[in-house]
C-alpha cells in the first residue's frame, strides 16, 4: 500500500467517523418499528454503496479505497447487531425479527435507489 492510498483511507475514515458521530448525536428519530439513528447511518451508507456499485468501483482503485476507508468507518455492523442484542436481552423476539427484516429491506431499497439513480441519469 503506497502513501497516497494510506492518505485516502485515513481521510475517508476520518470523514466517515465524524459524519457518523454527527448523525448519531443530531438525528435521533424513531420511525416504524424501531428505526434509530444508527440505522439511518446504515441506510445512507447503503445508498452510497449503491452509487459506488453503479460506478463499477471494483475497477477503480480510488473508489475501492473510498469504500474501505469512508464507507467502512461510516457504516457499522456491530451497532446493528447490538440493537438486535438489546431486543434479544429484553426477550422482545417478535420486535427483533421485524427490526432486522425492516433494516435489511430498507437498506436494499436505498442501495438500489443509489444504484438506479446513477444507472438512469
Amino acid at each position, binding site marked *: 500500500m503506497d502513501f497516497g492510498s494510506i492518505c485516502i483511507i485515513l481521510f475517508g475514515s476520518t470523514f466517515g467517523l465524524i459524519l457518523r458521530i454527527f448523525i*448519531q448525536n443530531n438525528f435521533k428519530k424513531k420511525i416504524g418499528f424501531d428505526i434509530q439513528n444508527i440505522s439511518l447511518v446504515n441506510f445512507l451508507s447503503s445508498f452510497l454503496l449503491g452509487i459506488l456499485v453503479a460506478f463499477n468501483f471494483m475497477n477503480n482503485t480510488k473508489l475501492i479505497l473510498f469504500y474501505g476507508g469512508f464507507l467502512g468507518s461510516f457504516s457499522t455492523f456491530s451497532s446493528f447487531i447490538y440493537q438486535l442484542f438489546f431486543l434479544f436481552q429484553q426477550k422482545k423476539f417478535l420486535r427483533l425479527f421485524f427490526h432486522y427484516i425492516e433494516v435489511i429491506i430498507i437498506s436494499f431499497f436505498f442501495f438500489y435507489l443509489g444504484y438506479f439513480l446513477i444507472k438512469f441519469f
Partner: protein
Amino acid sequence: MKIKNLIYILLACYLATFLRLIINNNFIISLFGSFLVGFFINQRLSYSIEKILLSGFFSCFTSFSGFIYFLYEILNKGDWLKFIIFFNLIIIVNLFAMYFGFYISRKIT
C-alpha cells in the same frame, strides 16, 4: 465531546480500519467484532473508554456496507434461496457471538 477524546476515537478508528483491510474477511471481522462488543458492554467502562471502544474501534472495524455488498453479490447471481439463508445465518451467528462474549464477560466479572 472533548478534543482529546475525539483524537483517541480517531486513532482507534484508524487502527480498526487498517486491521479490517488487513484481515479482509467480513464474516470473520463481524464475528470477532460482535464477540468483543458483547464482552465489553458488560464491563464497567468509563464513558470515554466506552466511546473509544464502541464508537471508535468496533464501529469502524465492522462494516455494514461490507455485509450489504456481500448480500448484493449473492442477489446479483439470482440465488434468492442462498441470499435468504445467508442474511439470516450471518445475523443469527453474530447475535450468538455477541451473546457468547456477554456470557463470558459475566462469568469472569
